[in-house]
């Protein structure tokens, strides 16, 4: 999918400015309804989740102290994985969004929560809350579109290293908490700046991140395993922590990919966004730039309700426990305004997201114009593009796109005939 302004049919073309403002009014009304209803039950919910998560984590770590026995290892690792997932997704991500600030509880507050992850809350809040949620899916502004290591939109220029992006994506998934830490620090950009020119803020943030990583690693790979000395469970505990972190990384990475990468989720051109985007326009961009996952209540909980990505992007500050409730009303608005409510089961969304990653690892039009017959020439072209330098890449890319267009036109004519 390319940005909506370059598509044959812009999915928002049928909406007038008044329509968009009216959409904003109707969405604001949904938000106000929840604000009015929010109260005791919501507070009880998050306290319960926090309590269950803490008991689960402590219990799992305790069980792991005898993990030299395989059943204990399995139970403890499963429990610890679930605990880490709950803490990061349903609790940490949502608390840091300010969803629970209204309770005035200093212990469950966006300004004080530090999450169980290699990245700092401060770094996450900046890159996620401030940048991603404000510039959602704007190519060139929302770095979540590929995290700087992949291209996920035709309008992101292809470079040879993208050929490896399925592999980078997989590695990122396995070590996602470190990927997030590096991403929050804008590590690529800052490390390629000469040392003397690096900003004080980067140096300070990097120090804080290293401190966080040190504390997390000490807990999982030194202190906890050491407590297993009496039972001979040192290595099993270490393996358990590594596994639990891996499980959390892969699961959260998959869920996050589903949020904006499935095929059909729209992206936006920087210059098509007005200087002062209105509330209605911002809502519309959030609606089209997000995708939901359908499934059971358990799935919703384990994804931290990011399965309701659309509702989350419309109302990032409403309690996550309310997204399921407003989803039917939101979907109705999509219908009313003739927009596509992107929702599918988990396996489908994950597959679709990976499909995009694989497809766009190749230059635009390459896959579409390659047949078994011309494969050798296409491969030669690809080699040339990879080694030939930017000018050759651009020229070859343009030709591929043209070929693809012509191919499509011929096929359309044949169909009409």
């Amino acid at each position, binding site marked *: 999918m390319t940005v909506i302004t370059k598509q044959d049919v812009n999915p928002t073309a049928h909406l007038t400015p008044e329509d968009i403002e009216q959409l904003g009014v109707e969405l604001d009304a949904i938000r106000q309804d929840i604000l009015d209803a929010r109260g005791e039950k919501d507070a009880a919910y998050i306290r319960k989740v926090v309590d269950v998560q803490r008991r689960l984590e402590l219990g799992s770590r305790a069980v792991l102290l005898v993990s030299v026995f395989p059943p204990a290892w399995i139970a403890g690792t499963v429990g610890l994985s679930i605990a880490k997932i709950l803490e990061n997704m349903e609790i940490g991500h949502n608390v840091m969004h300010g969803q629970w600030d209204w309770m005035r509880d200093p212990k469950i507050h966006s300004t004080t929560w*530090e999450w169980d992850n290699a990245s700092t809350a401060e770094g996450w809040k900046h890159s996620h*809350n401030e940048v991603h949620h404000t510039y959602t899916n704007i190519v060139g502004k929302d770095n979540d579109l590929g995290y700087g290591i992949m291209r996920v939109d035709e309008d992101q220029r292809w470079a040879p290293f993208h050929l490896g992006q399925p592999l980078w994506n997989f590695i990122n998934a396995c070590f996602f908490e470190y990927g997030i830490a590096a991403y929050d620090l804008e590590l690529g950009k800052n490390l390629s700046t000469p040392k003397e020119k690096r900003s004080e803020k980067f140096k300070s943030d990097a120090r804080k991140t290293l401190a966080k990583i040190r504390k997390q690693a000490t807990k999982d790979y030194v202190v906890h395993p050491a407590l297993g000395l009496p039972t001979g469970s040192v290595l099993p505990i270490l393996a358990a922590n590594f596994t639990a972190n891996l499980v959390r990384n892969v699961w959260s990475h998959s869920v996050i990919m589903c949020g904006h990468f499935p095929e059909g989720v729209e992206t936006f051109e920087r210059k098509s966004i007005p200087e002062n985007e209105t509330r209605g326009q911002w809502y519309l961009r959030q609606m089209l730039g997000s995708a939901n996952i359908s499934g059971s209540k358990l799935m919703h909980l384990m994804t931290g309700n990011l399965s309701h990505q659309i509702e989350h992007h419309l109302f990032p500050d409403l309690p996550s426990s309310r997204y399921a409730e407003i989803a039917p009303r939101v979907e109705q608005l999509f219908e009313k305004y003739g927009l596509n409510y992107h929702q599918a089961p988990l396996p489908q969304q994950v597959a679709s997201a990976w499909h995009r990653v694989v497809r766009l690892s190749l230059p635009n039009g390459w896959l579409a114009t390659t047949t078994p017959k011309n494969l050798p020439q296409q491969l030669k072209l690809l080699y040339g593009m990879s080694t030939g330098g930017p000018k050759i890449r651009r020229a070859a890319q343009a030709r591929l796109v043209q070929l693809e267009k012509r191919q499509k036109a011929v096929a359309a004519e044949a169909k009409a005939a």
Partner: protein
Amino acid sequence: MTSTALPRVATLAGPAGPTWRQRIRSVAEAAVTPLDLDDVLDVFAPLRGGAPLRGRVVSVSAETEQSSTLVIKPGKDWAGHVPGQYLRVGVEVDGVRLWRTYSLTHGPRPDGCISITVKAIPDGVVSNHLVRRVRAGQMLHLGQAEGDFVLGDPMPGKLLLVTAGSGITPVIGMLRNLYSKAATPALDIVLLHSALSRSEVIFGDELRDYAARGLIRLVELHTDVDGLLDVADLDDIVPDLAERATFACGPVGLLDALEDHHGSRGLPLHIERFRTELLAAGDADQTNVLTFSSGTTLEADGSTPILDAAENAGVLMPSGCRMGVCFGCVLPLREGVVRDLRNGEITTAAPGDGVAIQTCISAAAGPCHIDH
């Protein structure tokens, strides 16, 4: 995570290095990071020493139609109190933690519990919740005992206690403490209490019992029959007024009148004011004074976001999306009134309430003080 526990006695390592206790604590902290050890222990022992001060409600018993006494078991760090003092109580109402102050209605009790007696005021969010909805077993947040409305040591020999309505609460604490001891102190106490009606006198039976036993002289005024207390009548009711130390607790009008009356005659007066005035929101074009803890002061009207007003005055402010979505501009509002520019919602804050606001979508609706 920040902890709101009492400041601990310094746990610096001694000359011989860290103690075993400190070592174990370090290991425990390293094992639960990024949680504070307190957060973990709170799951099991919320009333332990070193935790933020809390109390478990032991019982809730009705005093009158409108008032109830809550007996509370405080956490281990409760430092005790002198009768007449009050404490801040934090209670979650509809999910939001709200703070109010209440007088302690028992002198130090043998069972170590404390008590407050709450009168449900019309439209009172917290008072109605405490009187009607709180159950035994629930947890409250507490502050340590505060206030100087105490009889003092040595106690004055002749006392005049003037109370009205819920103003009886600090005084009942004093009286219970005096008359629950083995030896009855030789004091001359006149208690002048005004309530809306006889049935609305909180602790009515107990007070009349003290009077019947000759421990105090009780003068009850019921507004429905006797009208409001007029300070000018005091000399008739209490002829030896000038020989007594006066302690008064009640509505603003009564206390102000007493201050004038006693002040003009140079008589000793101790008063306890219950803060009941609610901050009211002004309208959109009212200019308000914004003060910052850094010392900066500026003016802003009710339709300009505080973020913009402050930046225009040269203050460096945290910010993010500038549209209320990212919570990157949140700052503590120590006290004041603000209006959410998106939906008009008013938020008021008093010191200790723990209110934080998003400055990009909040405008001042009254004088505000921001911690920044």
